[in-house]
């Protein structure tokens, strides 16, 4: 256990959650305005590729970051144009963008770098710095400064900024209103589609920044399909976080933690005791969820919890009997790699019961004229 629960796990969690937070915040601006943004994955890739390419030529991560932001915004503008102006199906358009950005970087990298899908390595001094890189010589032994990227700080600031914008500014009020009831917003004199354009473009800019972090922050080059589903996990976090900035960040941290755990667990023997407890907890959650879904139990929380507890104690006995005598086991790496995705599915399927999407999400707004 010592080997797993270390400070390194905390930093790893922050690192891995950062691109999720940025992408999910992007999704928030778009979805709160009523436009489904399933294109986050493609926007991350667009940002990542642009950041790596531009940084390679410009020798400055800041220029690369800016370019990624603009690239994300431009791609999102295409999405906005299709979904808002031409009222295309938002899911189909978003999926199209995702597919486009699996292929497009490969083509462009062939033209720019004569490679098939990746950019050249970028020297370390041209990557986005950690906090201590920003403040050289300040508290050189603080690991939080040497381990955490400046982008993680930026992500945190953006979360708080978004919360302010959403609930404390006229723009935020309009954004929420437009996503919830565009007719009402229109009747109140709010330009529905204009707000939606802004929401979607902001979404692209933020996801672009998230992508930049993937290629020139966490890594040092763009590799093919390097987002690896993070755009979709960010979307899941957004739903789990009920489309609210701080809750969404917490959801991203949960998914980041699952991801970090994956890295830490690989090749490490786990004590049987821990494994038994983990299995019992898992079963408890599953049974509780099933009990919760069955309406004939009359929705009594006590019955749900007791039945879940009884079943998990029984299962714990079974697992105990099976694993008696063993000390440590090594979990197959395939199972470990499943963790972040399983967590996503479990969270989405089981615990978001009351998460309520903006009501107009996915419906184009058209005035009858």
């Amino acid at each position, binding site marked *: 256990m010592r080997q797993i629960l270390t400070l390194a796990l905390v930093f790893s969690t922050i690192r891995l959650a950062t691109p999720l937070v940025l992408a999910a915040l992007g999704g928030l601006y778009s979805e709160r305005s009523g436009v489904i943004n399933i294109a986050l994955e493609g926007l991350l890739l667009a940002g990542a590729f642009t950041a790596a390419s531009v940084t390679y030529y410009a020798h400055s991560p800041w220029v690369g970051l800016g370019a990624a932001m603009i690239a994300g915004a431009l791609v999102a503008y295409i999405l906005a144009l299709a979904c808002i102006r031409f009222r295309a199906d938002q899911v189909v358009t978003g999926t199209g963008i995702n597919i486009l950005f699996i292929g497009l970087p490969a083509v462009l990298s062939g033209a720019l770098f004569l490679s098939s899908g990746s950019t050249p390595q970028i020297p370390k001094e041209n990557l986005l710095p950690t906090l201590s890189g920003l403040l050289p010589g300040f508290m050189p032994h603080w690991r939080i400064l040497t381990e955490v990227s400046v982008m993680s700080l930026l992500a945190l600031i953006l979360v708080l900024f978004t919360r302010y914008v959403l609930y404390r500014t006229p723009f935020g009020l309009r954004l*929420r*209103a437009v996503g919830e009831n565009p007719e*009402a*917003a229109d009747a*109140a004199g709010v330009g529905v589609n204009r707000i939606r354009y802004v929401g979607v473009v902001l979404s692209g800019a933020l996801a672009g920044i998230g992508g930049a972090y993937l290629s020139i922050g966490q890594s040092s080059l763009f590799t093919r399909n390097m987002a690896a589903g993070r755009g979709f996990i960010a979307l899941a976090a957004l739903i789990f976080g009920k489309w609210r900035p701080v809750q969404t960040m917490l959801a991203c941290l949960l998914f980041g933690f699952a991801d970090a755990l994956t890295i830490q667990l690989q090749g490490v023997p786990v004590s049987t005791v821990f494994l038994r407890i983990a299995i019992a907890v898992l079963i408890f959650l599953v049974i509780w969820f099933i009990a919760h879904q069955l309406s004939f139990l009359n929705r009594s929380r006590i019955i749900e919890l007791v039945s879940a507890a009884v079943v998990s104690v029984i299962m714990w006995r079974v697992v105990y009997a099976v694993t008696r005598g063993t000390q440590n086991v090594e979990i197959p790496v395939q199972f470990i790699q499943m963790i972040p995705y399983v967590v996503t599915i479990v969270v989405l399927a089981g615990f978001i019961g009351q998460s309520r999407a903006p*009501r107009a999400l996915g419906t184009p707004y058209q005035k009858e004229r």
Partner: protein
Amino acid sequence: MLELRNITKTFGDVLANDRVSFKVEPGTIHAIVGENGAGKSTAMRIAYGFYTADSGEILIDGQVREIRTPHDAIALGIGMVHQHFMLVEPMTVAENIVLGAEPGSATSLDLRKAADEIRKVSDEFKLSVDPNATIETLSVGQQQRVELLKALYRRAQLLILDEPTAVLTPQEVEEFFAILRGMRDQGKTIVIITHKLSEVLAISDNVTVMRDGRVVGNVKTSETSAAELARMMVGREVLLRVEKPDAKPGAALISLRDVSIVGRDGTKRVDKVSFEVRAGEIVGIAGVEGNGQTELMEALAGLIPGAYVSGSINFEGRDITRLDARARKELGIAHVPEDRHRRGLLLDFSLAENTILGVHYRKPAVMGPGGILLDQKGIQRRTEQVLRDFDVRPPSPDLPARALSGGNQQKLIIGREFELPPKFLLVSQPTRGVDIGAIEFIHQKIVAMRDAGCAVLLVSAELEEVTALSDRLLVIHNGKIAGEVDPKVTTNEEIGLMMTGGRRS
């Protein structure tokens, strides 16, 4: 204050407004009446900038103005309360009211200042609305007052109200009218769109009558009558009252004992309801919408899964609680659903196909061994019969149901269900969105079914409709039967009180 001059507007091939002209005097309450589709809402939506007119001009205080968006209208002091409220439900009253006209700067929204301002306006017009309440926790009447506040907060001098009383109980209507009169006395001008003649006479100073997209009359309310207005609206003499002989009820056909229904979210929608309907009588259920009527009717039609229904339903002495919709239909239970688009029709299917919905598996719709083939001739014959008997226009079986007006869609459904033929008839909101001429027709058909010995259970949000048609009237409140009244002697006040839980009898 407001003047429309020769406003013309088409939607596709439909001429919605044809050279509409009228004038609203400042400081008056001006009613615009007409049947559905007469173009009253269209005209006012043009005045509010929701639609742009093809031609014609709008004058505000004697000057020609261009109103392209609601934003322009608001700037000119026009406010509109729509039939379907334009409120963002998860937000607070204050947020809804300031939306689009936010106080404070672009970087900070001053909701506290807004709340104070709203309270002031609310007190001034005696609206008693709490600015910090969330919209979804408010009653419909309160939500409507929020809509009024929204317009007043923007300093509207002219308020356009589209069918404002459709969702209110009789008591709420009284309060609402008192508020409107108060507003008029403080110098506001009010335009009220409605099709209820009694309300026109009760509240307005002047009336504009519209028919088929045209203005057919401008009169002073004090110089007209309901009969005259109805004649102008429809273009012929209309029977405003339902003429029906006394019922001659037979034996109890259907009886409910302690029927309770829970919704999918686990809340109780209908709570231990017991009553019976006899052959040859119309039993009406009055109540504010959302008090369990929908669930009760759907449960009787067999549309709610048995797991959500408890108690027993007996039909001709047989327990049908667990039977599905088809089995019930075969026993002779017909259902005219409240939402004709959701439950009643397949809008993109032809009239012929819609006519055999529910009887599509038996004669005359099918032929061949085991009925595996559709009998096109049989369907054709039945469709023509329904279209003729129920005066569905245009009577072309191949037209998609979508192409019909609301009234004709409703007549099609009623025809389909009435020609089953049923022994027990469930009718929900039979005349919602149906114009006066068709209402008269539908009412006569319902009474004719009763006189032919059919048991009828009727739910309607229109209090006048249930009182006029029913032989016995039950009032439902909060899922419970609050009491039974005799529709011949009861008053709107008595029913209204029971509808809101004010008294049990």
